């Protein structure tokens, strides 16, 4: 998988995790800062929620991945990729916490 695909896939997996919940208004469309803000406002997610912090961290790390994309073997890229994977796990844990228990899982 190319680094470009790898970056797209990292975002996709986090979006799938977040959107596995049936949010009131809108899905999270992307991991850009403005998309996260739109989703949080539309669905009334508390601005201080840990989930929001994790998503913004993942957004920043994906930006770092793109900046080191010409050298995917280099340490920074691999470390950042691992950080994004860890954040994905933390997002999944946060979604299953009691705070979001009232948001139902989406039926596919």
């Amino acid at each position, binding site marked *: 998988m*190319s680094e*470009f*695909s790898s970056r*797209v*896939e990292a*975002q*996709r997996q986090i*979006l*799938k995790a977040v*959107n*596995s919940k049936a949010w009131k208004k*809108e*899905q999270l*469309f*992307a991991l*850009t*800062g*403005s*998309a996260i*803000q*739109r989703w949080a406002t539309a669905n009334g997610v508390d601005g201080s929620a840990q989930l929001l912090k994790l998503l913004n961290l993942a957004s920043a790390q994906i*930006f770092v991945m793109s*900046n080191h994309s*010409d050298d995917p073997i280099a340490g920074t890229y691999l470390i950042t990729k691992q950080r994004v994977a860890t954040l994905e796990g933390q997002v999944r844990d946060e979604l299953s916490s009691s705070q979001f228990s009232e948001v139902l899982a*989406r039926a*596919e």
Partner: protein
Amino acid sequence: MHLYAFGSVCRGEIDRDSDIDLLALVSGHDNRLEQSKYSIYSYSKMKKMWFKGSPFAWHLALESRLLFASDDSDFLKSLGQPSSYVHFLSDCEKFYGVFLEARSSLTESTSSRVFDFSTIFLSVRNIATCFSLGVLGQPIFSRHAALRMPPDFKLPISERSYRILERSRILCTRSVGSDIAEEEAGLVLSECDNIDHWMTELVKKAKSHERIQQSS
């Protein structure tokens, strides 16, 4: 630091959906630069892209304007012309792969649907730009490159489907616009075979072009 404008604003293509693309060249981290407003590159990375002859280097060489230079120099101009673009086949294959992954994700679930449509728009635009630069020798850097290809290579989907893909892209990058409705999603999904066939043909032509180049 060097700041450049590039893209549609430099071509004079202004419409309501156009944003202004800005490039920042920096020596190290600069926290004054908002990543959502600038494409940020180090000087060394830009030099590598120039040396590799990447489509983005060609885009900047042909369609950028210097806005600010902390040392009064035009850094990009000083690099001269980028190297020949030789990786067109692997790039076309890469973006075809990105399309296939998005399509597969759409089949699996709707949990990242807008993002997957946005990714399809990106893959369609990028394969058209890589093909036009590497194979046709007439680069099209517009985000509508797929529609502006010569008639034999133009993306064969309806205008409406194309606009839904474009709207998805804008939803993901700028968070502006309305969500994609079920009926609209169905329309785009029904065009995926056409997109697949179009991309397959571009990859075939790119392979053939590479063989001709290698034998001459």
